[in-house]
């Protein structure tokens, strides 16, 4: 009985450790390919352009609308709470920290995960089941360079740039709220934000955008690659991929908060 329990724990530990090792190895290989100039052949550049278009450009109308709606409501709540707790003198730094450091990259990562992460996970899983990946390998086409790298780079570029756009829209919609609620003019609002913003905030925004972008594409790709060879395995692969992706996004968020609190 005890022996079986120990064997079970050992088996699960070995399985988990080997999965972690494989995932880390895959990540390292992708990173190595990312810095090699030879990876950037014409076909890869074409896929990269298309991926940036699908991930970042196609979503812009919906994204702007959501940024404005969510932005004005949430920034309104923040301003009301800050006023209630007599923090009017620190309202600029509260808005900057909340919008730039936390909300913009996190919300963008969630939105892109739901839209592009699922699509990429399904795409790779379908290619795996249809043996299209094998065909590409037969023709000696590097899967990392042709399929994975453009998606990962597009994720990094898209999430970083959309996070900046989200922050700008959210800060602008914040002005609309302060105008009506606090009767603050544009000049005062602008100065409030300029006085509060620091280089550190921009660095955090960029670093989080890059990290979120990397995992938002890498995890669905890896999950799609691990799909079993049947059509019924595709939804399971997407489900597992999305759960892992959300855990990773929350993990990055927690690590970022811990590092900022040091």
């Amino acid at each position, binding site marked *: 009985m005890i022996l079986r329990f120990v064997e079970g724990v050992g088996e699960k530990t070995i399985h988990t450790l080997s999965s972690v090792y494989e995932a880390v190895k895959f990540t390292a290989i992708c990173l190595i390919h990312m810095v090699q100039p030879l990876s950037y052949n*014409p076909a890869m550049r*074409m896929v990269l352009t298309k991926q940036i278009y699908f991930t970042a450009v196609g979503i812009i109308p919906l994204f702007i609308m959501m940024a404005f709606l969510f932005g004005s409501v949430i920034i309104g709540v923040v301003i009301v709470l800050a006023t209630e707790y007599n923090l009017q003198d620190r309202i600029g730094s509260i808005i900057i920290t909340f919008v730039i450091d936390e909300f913009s990259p996190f919300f963008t990562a969630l939105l892109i995960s739901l839209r592009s992460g699922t699509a990429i996970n399904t795409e790779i899983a379908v290619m795996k089941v249809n043996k299209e990946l094998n065909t590409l390998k037969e*023709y000696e086409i590097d899967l990392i360079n*042709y399929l994975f790298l453009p998606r990962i780079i597009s994720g990094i570029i898209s999430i970083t740039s959309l996070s900046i756009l989200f922050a700008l829209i959210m800060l602008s919609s914040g002005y609309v709220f302060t105008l009506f609620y606090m009767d603050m003019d544009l000049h005062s609002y602008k100065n409030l934000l300029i006085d509060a913003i620091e280089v550190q905030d921009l660095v955090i925004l960029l670093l989080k955008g890059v990290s979120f972008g990397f995992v938002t594409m890498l995890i669905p790709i890896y999950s799609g690659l691990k799909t079993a060879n049947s059509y019924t395995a595709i939804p399971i692969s997407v489900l597992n991929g999305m759960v892992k992706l959300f855990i990773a996004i929350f993990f990055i968020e927690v690590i970022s908060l811990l590092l900022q609190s040091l």
Partner: protein
Amino acid sequence: MLENIALIKEVHELMPISKAEALAQEYLAKIALEDIGLLRLVQCTPTDIFYVMLIRALMSKEMNIIILTPFYLIHDLKSIQTILENMQLLNNNKEITIFDIITNEIHYEGCLCNTVK
């Protein structure tokens, strides 16, 4: 389909996309299939897909091309003769071999090809 064919030259010979796609279009035009250039896989017939696969193989550096049981790839194929003629139009210098099963032998009767049993 053009992207599908052009990919081989773009990756292996770093050929610019426009040039590789023009070459792919040229190959499709040789067998009067230039119309499928901009179609997606689901919009093509099994015959179109077969020719795209063949042209893609011709684009590779390999000198030997093996086709396995073409009568399973193209369901409505009555005789192999049309394919053999189109292969001659497309092929420049590669060795193309067809492997098929003995029950399909009837389809090869009277064809301009060597049959080895």
